[in-house]
C-alpha cells in the first residue's frame, strides 16, 4: 500500500493530534465510536466517513478523533468489529505510528456477558473474560457465544 494519502481520506479534514482509524468495514463507524465511548456529548472533535470506496475493502468507513490515542484494550475490542482496521496515531499533523489491528486471544473487562444467568453479570468482583473465536466471542465463564452486535456488549 502506498504511503501517499488515499484520495478518499481527503474527504474528511486532517487532524492535528489524535487517532485515525482507517479501513473500518463499511457501516461500522458508529460502533467504533461506541467502543471509544464517544457520542459527541463531551465536545470531542470527530470526523466520520462512511461507505467511501476503498481498494482494499470495496467500501470502508474512516473515523478521525482529535486529541485521543487509543489504549490496547480499545484496540482489542475494535479488532472484533473492524478486523481490517489500520490505526494511525497523529501528532502535529504527522502520522507517527501506523499499525494494523490484531485480534487478541482473549478480551478482559471490556465486554459484558449478555447472559443474565452468568456469574459475571452480578455483584461478584470478577472481570468479564471472552475468548475470541473466528466468528465471534465466547464468555469464559458461562460459555455464551456472541457473533453479532458485539459492540452492544461494551461495558460503559
Amino acid at each position: 500500500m502506498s504511503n501517499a494519502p488515499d484520495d478518499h481520506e481527503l474527504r474528511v479534514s486532517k487532524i492535528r493530534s489524535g487517532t485515525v482509524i482507517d479501513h473500518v468495514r463499511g457501516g461500522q463507524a458508529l460502533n467504533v465510536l461506541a467502543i471509544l465511548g464517544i457520542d459527541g456529548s463531551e465536545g470531542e472533535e470527530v470526523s466520520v466517513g462512511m461507505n467511501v470506496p476503498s481498494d482494499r475493502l470495496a467500501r470502508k468507513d474512516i473515523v478521525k478523533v482529535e486529541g485521543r490515542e487509543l489504549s490496547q484494550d480499545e484496540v482489542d475490542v475494535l479488532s472484533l468489529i473492524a478486523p481490517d482496521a489500520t490505526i494511525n496515531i497523529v501528532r502535529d499533523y504527522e502520522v507517527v505510528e501506523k499499525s494494523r489491528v490484531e485480534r487478541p486471544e482473549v478480551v478482559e473487562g471490556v465486554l459484558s456477558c449478555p447472559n443474565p444467568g452468568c456469574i459475571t453479570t452480578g455483584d461478584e468482583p470478577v472481570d468479564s473474560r471472552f475468548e475470541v473465536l473466528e466468528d465471534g466471542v465466547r464468555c469464559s465463564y458461562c460459555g455464551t457465544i456472541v457473533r453479532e452486535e458485539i459492540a452492544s456488549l461494551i461495558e460503559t
Partner: protein
Amino acid sequence: MRHDHLITSKQLSRDDVETVLDRAAEIDADPSSVAGRHAGRLLGLLFFEPSTRTKMSFETAMKRLGGDVVDMGSVESSSVKKGETLADTVRVIEGYADALVLRHPQQGAAKMASEYVDVPLVNAGDGAGHHPSQTMLDLYTIRENAGLEDLTIGIMGDLKYGRTVHSLAYALSNFDARQHFISPESLQLPREVVYDLHQQQGGTQIREHESIEAVLPSLDVLYVTRIQRERFPDENEYQQVAGEYQIDAETLEAASDDLTVMHPLPRVDEIAPEIDDTDYAAYFEQAHNGVPVRMALLDMLLENGGEDDE
C-alpha cells in the same frame, strides 16, 4: 487425573474419565479398602440451591472415606443473605475445609469460585451450565449396563436447561458414541453446546429429533430428563408438550430388549412407575452409583490437592 478442580466435563479426556470410572469400580467392589483413607479431612458443602441426591451422596462419600463434612446450610441462614459475594464466601470456607463442593444458580459460578481458592473445588451444578460429577456417575452406569464402546444413546427432555445433559454430551464425545437428542424445539440443546460438539476431534455423531419414535429401536441407552413446568408460559402448553416426552410400557414395546433407561432424578411423570421393576430401569442403580463415583473423585482430588496442575 491431575486436575485441581472439577468444573466441567469438557476439561476431561477419555483417559481421565476411564481413570475415575476404574477407581470407582475398585471402590464399589471393596469399599472397605478406602475406609479411613481420608480420616481427619473435611469437605465443605456450599449449596446455594436445594439438593438431595448430590449433597447426600457427596456427604456419604466423604464419610465413607473416613472424613467428615462442614455444611454452609441454606442460603437463608448464611451470610449470603447479608449480601456477601460468592468470591468472599468461598475464600472464607476454604480456610475450614480440605476441598469444596459448590452448587450455585448462576452459570460460571464454579469456574469463578475456583479462581479464588487453592483447595480442590467440585462443581455440583452451576445454573444451566455443568454438573460433571453427575456425568461421571452417568458414565459409570452406562459402562456397567451397555458399555461405552459403539454406543447409541438417546437423550430426551429438557436439553436446553438440563445441565446434566450438557455435561454428559461433552463427556460422551470422547467415546465412539452416536448421540440422539430428543426434545421439543423450544428446549433443544443450546447452540453453544452443539457448536462445541461439532468442533470435537473425531467427529462426534449428533442428531436432533422432536420425537422419539423413529430413533427408539436403535438405542442402547435412553436418558430421560424432566421437563419443568416453569419453562412454559401456560399450563396447557406444558401439559401438551410434556406428555409427548413421557415413557411407559407401551412406548417401550418398540425398544430393544437390552435398552437401559436412565434418569438423573427426581422424576415427576416422565417415566411411568410400571417401568421401575423391568430390566430396562437403571435409574435407582444410577443414583446409588453416586457414592462410589464421588468417593473416587474426592479420593483423587484430595490426593492431588495443593499440587500444581500439569
